[in-house]
């Protein structure tokens, strides 16, 4: 290609002559998002060189990154792929416009609304069109100029559009940066690799263009000639080479971001390698990015790639030195599948220099069943082996997951295998192997591929479904030619235990191979090793995880700590009072309201004191607040105000001093599935105290559950209730077991709440004895009851409560007068005056009217003296007897306090 690039200024003048604006242009404002600036789009058909080129021009008003008040900005030309049109790149164009560029897109000749025949990026056709578009940009007021007629401009595009960006940079010196994606360096190499016609892709290529007649005549003729012959000729190669960036490779001297696809059997990675080497050799900055997808399908990573292209242009068009353009080499690696959405996971590996396709070579010894392998080329090259199939290519990216669609027919290939790999091996680049090929014909075509074979040998994966064709022709073929086979460039992890299998097949579905039947012989040459590039400098980046993977648990921990710290109210118990160290219980001003109630008190301003050795009866009707008081004493309920001190220590939930308190409150609480003994054992173990301190047998005996005689113990293994599950117990049994539990360890203070419920009369009597004995040696018992009769016989002291308040506290005799409360029943109702008279008698404490008569508490007088006095007062007596009912005792107390 000796095309002379015209001086830009001269060209600018020329363009004015024939690049007439066909239409005035239409303005469209694309509003997108609330914050994003509005993008203006100008549609314009430009006539040039006898064809009409459909263009769109994208700008925003006062976009960020536009320097100066004039709003001059760099321009970007975006080309489209083969078979597409300018509309394909509109979204990217709008984004670039928002990023502060003037963006021009166009439909290439023969595509979209543009006229003309497809020239496959003809230097005299499509390439010159781009120069004219640059001329036009130079005239735009928005566009920043490097010189008169020379705008600051970058070119990008995919595939066909990628090639034009390279060609524009080679042919027009005004181009300042390029970002070609998944495109070719030499189209002849792409369609005729090593002289083998890539027939499937070539046919799709022509078909996508709209058929042969849409192409320039010489291209159409060339294609038909090659397709019929099944092999390219020199003229075809020359024609395509002349259309390729490689023809101007020594003139591409601008920064280039080269994006190439790993799943691309049309333009494989070695095209990017050639581009990078040429442009780097010219002294321009180059970055290479191998994306996951490609022409065979897969993830094109559009968002990431477009972002990187913008960074590239920010750096080299806007001149922002601070912009990070990313690593010199990056390759996307396929991880596993995301189980939540089924998508393959991608992560990047990067290196600060491009390693090429042969970095970090390792030799892997190959072996075969026979050193010389014979196989045939079937007549008509049918059936063909299958590797990449355009269209189903999306499957090929699954090769990274150990899944693949590939097929070899027996007898049509030679195979050589490495030993099992001792460790994981990452192949990055083109493996090579030296083989000797002999054919019984002049013309031999073989397809080389490297399989990753699983440890059990049952599965083989062809990375990216790629094959490398090789043609051996001429005299050498019959004598045996030594071929250095360059296998496809890949990035693939071979796991430890797997093998690599080199296969040379006679056929491949995607390629034209000789139709004549042939016999091939292949053997390993040289040291018989497969050379694999490992590019050890390329390091896999950590998978990007969102911030919240680490941030959220940290926040959760912080919230948890805050919740726990703010809950710690009133935890610091007041110091123990040494003066009260010998006082089992002192309650001062204890008050507790019912939950969610402002004025209903469960306990109100309760104060009393229990001394060592006392058996205290806590007496009151149901609902008097006895149980609430005992629960506060056990640290189960927090009082609203007031203080409870046990042996001088203030009670808080879980206060250690509670270990000196044994309690039985509001019925038994046992694990129903365990035996009584297991329950007591586990309860004692839960206290954490030594087993020998529990005095379990003693407690059981007291509670009437033990049996000290050895004979009955033997008997008890099955029948004894203590060894049955608690769920089988009667109410009374549970009660006794619970009392035994309260007595475990013989606590200094024993609290029994209604202990005689469920006990029969003899047991009640024994219970009294137990309490009295328990307290006799300095221990203290608090027993609550609503029955005066029950407490007065066993208790030394009484605390009487009603409606949450203390009614009276003191020795039993003091309150009940021993047995001195008498109920005087009368005929008819007693008058108030009579009651007062009786009360005023000497030796009488109180006298209160009741429904049945008069309740009298003696205070020194004897019952007979009382009867005498009553008779004297003409009280209509029907009977006089001792009073044992609590309600009446209360009445006397209330009467006594009010009188």
């Amino acid at each position, binding site marked *: 290609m000796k095309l002379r690039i015209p001086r830009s200024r001269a060209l600018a003048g020329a363009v004015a002559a024939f690049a007439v604006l066909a239409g005035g242009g239409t303005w469209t404002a694309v509003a997108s998002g609330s914050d994003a600036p509005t993008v203006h789009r100008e549609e314009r058909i430009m006539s040039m060189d006898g064809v009409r080129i459909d263009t769109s021009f994208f700008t925003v008003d006062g976009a960020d990154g536009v320097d100066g008040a004039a709003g001059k900005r760099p321009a970007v030309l975006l080309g489209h792929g083969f078979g597409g049109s300018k509309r394909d790149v509109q979204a990217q164009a709008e984004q670039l416009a928002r990023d502060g560029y003037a963006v021009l897109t166009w439909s290439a000749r023969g595509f979209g609304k543009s006229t003309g025949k497809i020239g496959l990026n003809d230097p005299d056709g499509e390439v010159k069109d781009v120069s004219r578009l640059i001329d036009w940009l130079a005239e735009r007021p928005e566009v920043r100029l490097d010189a008169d007629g020379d705008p600051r401009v970058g070119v990008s595009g995919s595939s066909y559009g990628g090639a034009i960006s390279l060609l524009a940079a080679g042919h027009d010196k005004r181009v300042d940066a390029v970002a070609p994606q998944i495109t070719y360096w030499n189209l002849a190499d792409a369609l005729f690799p090593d002289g083998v016609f890539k027939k499937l892709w070539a046919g799709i290529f022509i078909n996508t263009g709209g058929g042969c007649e849409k192409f320039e005549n010489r291209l159409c003729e060339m294609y038909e000639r090659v397709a019929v012959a099944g092999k390219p000729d020199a003229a075809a190669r020359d024609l395509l080479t002349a259309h390729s960036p490689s023809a101007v490779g020594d003139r591409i001297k601008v920064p280039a971001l080269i994006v190439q696809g790993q799943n691309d059997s049309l333009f494989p990675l070695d095209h990017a390698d050639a581009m990078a080497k040429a442009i780097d050799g010219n002294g321009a900055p180059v970055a290479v990015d191998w994306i996951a997808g490609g022409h065979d399908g897969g993830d094109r990573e559009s968002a990431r790639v477009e972002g990187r292209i913008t960074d590239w242009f920010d750096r080299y068009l806007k001149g922002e030195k601070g912009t990070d353009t990313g690593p010199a080499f990056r390759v996307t690696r396929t991880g*596993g599948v*995301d*189980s*939540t959405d089924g998508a393959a996971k991608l992560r990047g590996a990067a290196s600060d220099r491009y390693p090429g396709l042969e970095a970090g070579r390792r030799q892997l010894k190959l072996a075969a069943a026979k050193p010389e392998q014979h196989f045939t080329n079937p007549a008509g090259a049918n059936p063909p082996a299958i590797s990449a199939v355009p269209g189903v290519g999306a499957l090929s990216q699954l090769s990274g*997951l150990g899944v693949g669609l590939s097929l070899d027919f027996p007898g049509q290939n030679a195979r050589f295998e490495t030993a099992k790999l001792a460790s994981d091996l990452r192949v990055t680049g083109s493996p090579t192997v030296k083989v000797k090929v002999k054919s019984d014909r002049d013309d031999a075509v073989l397809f080389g591929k490297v399989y990753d074979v*699983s*440890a059990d040998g049952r*599965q083989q994966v062809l990375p990216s479904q790629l094959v490398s064709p090789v043609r051996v022709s001429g005299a050498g073929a019959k004598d045996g030619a030594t071929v250095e086979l360059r296998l496809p460039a890949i990035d693939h992890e071979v796991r430890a235990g797997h093998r690599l299998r080199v296969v040379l097949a006679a056929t491949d579905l995607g390629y034209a191979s000789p139709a004549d039947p042939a016999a091939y012989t292949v053997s390993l040459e040289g040291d018989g090793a497969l050379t694999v590039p490992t590019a050890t400098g390329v390091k896999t980046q950590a998978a990007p995880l969102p911030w919240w*993977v680490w941030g*959220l*648990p940290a*926040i*959760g921990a912080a*919230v*948890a700590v805050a*919740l*726990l710290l*703010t*809950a710690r*109210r009133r935890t610091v118990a007041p110091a*123990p009072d040494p003066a009260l*160290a010998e006082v089992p219980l002192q309650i001062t001003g204890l008050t507790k309201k019912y939950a969610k109630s402002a004025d209903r008190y469960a306990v109100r301003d309760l104060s009393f004191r229990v001394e060592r050795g006392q058996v205290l009866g806590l007496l009151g009707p149901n609902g008097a607040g006895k149980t609430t008081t005992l*629960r506060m004493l*056990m640290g189960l*309920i927090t009082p609203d105000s007031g203080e409870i001190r046990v*042996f001088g220590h203030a009670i808080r*939930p*879980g206060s*250690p001093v*509670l*270990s000196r308190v044994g*309690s039985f*409150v*509001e019925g038994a*609480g046992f*694990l129903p*599935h*365990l035996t009584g003994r297991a329950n007591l054992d*586990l309860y004692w*173990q*839960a*206290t*954490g*105290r*030594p087993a020998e*301190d529990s*005095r379990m047998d*003693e407690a059981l005996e*007291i509670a*009437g559950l033990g049996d*000290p005689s050895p004979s009955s113990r033997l008997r008890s293994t099955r029948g004894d209730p203590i060894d049955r599950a608690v769920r089988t117990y009667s109410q009374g049994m549970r009660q006794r077991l619970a009392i035994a539990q309260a007595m475990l*360890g*013989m*606590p*200094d203070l024993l609290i029994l709440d209604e202990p005689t419920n469920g006990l029969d009369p003899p047991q009640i009597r*024994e219970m009294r*004895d137990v309490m009295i*004995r*328990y307290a006799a*040696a300095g221990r203290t018992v608090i027993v609550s009851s609503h029955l005066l009769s029950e407490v007065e016989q066993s208790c030394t002291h009484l605390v009487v409560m009603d409606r949450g308040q203390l009614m009276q506290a003191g020795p039993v005799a003091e309150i009940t007068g021993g047995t001195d409360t008498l109920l005087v029943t009368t005929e008819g109702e007693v008058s108030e005056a009579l009651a007062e008279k009786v009360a005023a008698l000497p030796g009488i404490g109180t006298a209160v009217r009741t429904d049945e008569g008069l309740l009298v508490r003696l205070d020194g007088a004897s019952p007979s003296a009382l009867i005498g006095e009553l008779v004297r007062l003409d009280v209509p007596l029907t009977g006089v007897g001792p009073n044992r009912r609590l309600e009446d005792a209360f009445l006397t107390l209330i009467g006594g306090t009010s009188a």
Partner: protein
Amino acid sequence: MSTPVTAPATERATEPATESATESAPGYRAGHTLPLRVEAMRQWRRRRTMVMAVVLGALPLILIAAFAIGGTPGREGGRVTLMDTATASGANFAATCLFVSAGFLLVVPVALFCGDTVASEANWSSLRYLLAAPVPRARLLWSKLAVALAFSLAAMVLLPGVALVTGSIAYGWGPLELPTGGSLPAGDAIPRLALVVAFIFVSQLVTAALAFWLSTKTDAPLGAVGGAVGLTIVGNVLDAVTALGSWRDFLPAHWQFAWADALQPQLEWGGMLKGAAVSVTYALVLFALAFRGFSRKDIVS
């Protein structure tokens, strides 16, 4: 008290109380109350524990019987699941058992062990005696939580463990055939299965924490268990609402099958890390709420 109180007992019962000046009874140390061993003993013999163990232990046998009657599962349709490779090896069978049970069956023991633990004590009235023993409240919760989590973990280990043993007997000891293709040697597969169990456990921490929190709030054991299972179901339903978009990332249910990432040729950590992060976050807050609420609660059960 049908037996008369004998003289020796009386003497001992009336021994003078000593050490009355000390704060606590001899041998009492708050940190040694309700040891884990004791709490485990309390829970172990319960019928629900036994039933759970039997169900989880029997499930692999039922599946083996089902495969024997119904034939080896085949690949039907385009979707390949673990079910298709269930009978390939013992490891495959264990993975399949996890696959069928991870969605719901393994949620139940976690909700049961953690939701029932405090509420059932309240229900039995034994909670107040433990607290008055006294077992400090935080200590009680800690022991109960540790034992409940240990039981939950045991349930999760039991199922694949039994499946691995019975599966190896029924289908042989071999490599783990992956549904996505490829296989893992048996030696590599066991650590992967352990990782799966570990992830399922961590991802169920949120259920555990929810159940535990409810357990401290209610005296009805079934309320706590049912509440936790119910909210797990609500989470699953919400996760099916694709309109929620990326908000679903913060639903614990969204990640419940992320452990499948561990059964790929190439181990993927991303999903499991995200799922673990979400679960641990919710769990920390809920556990803190449980400790906070219980430390100041009036025990009226």
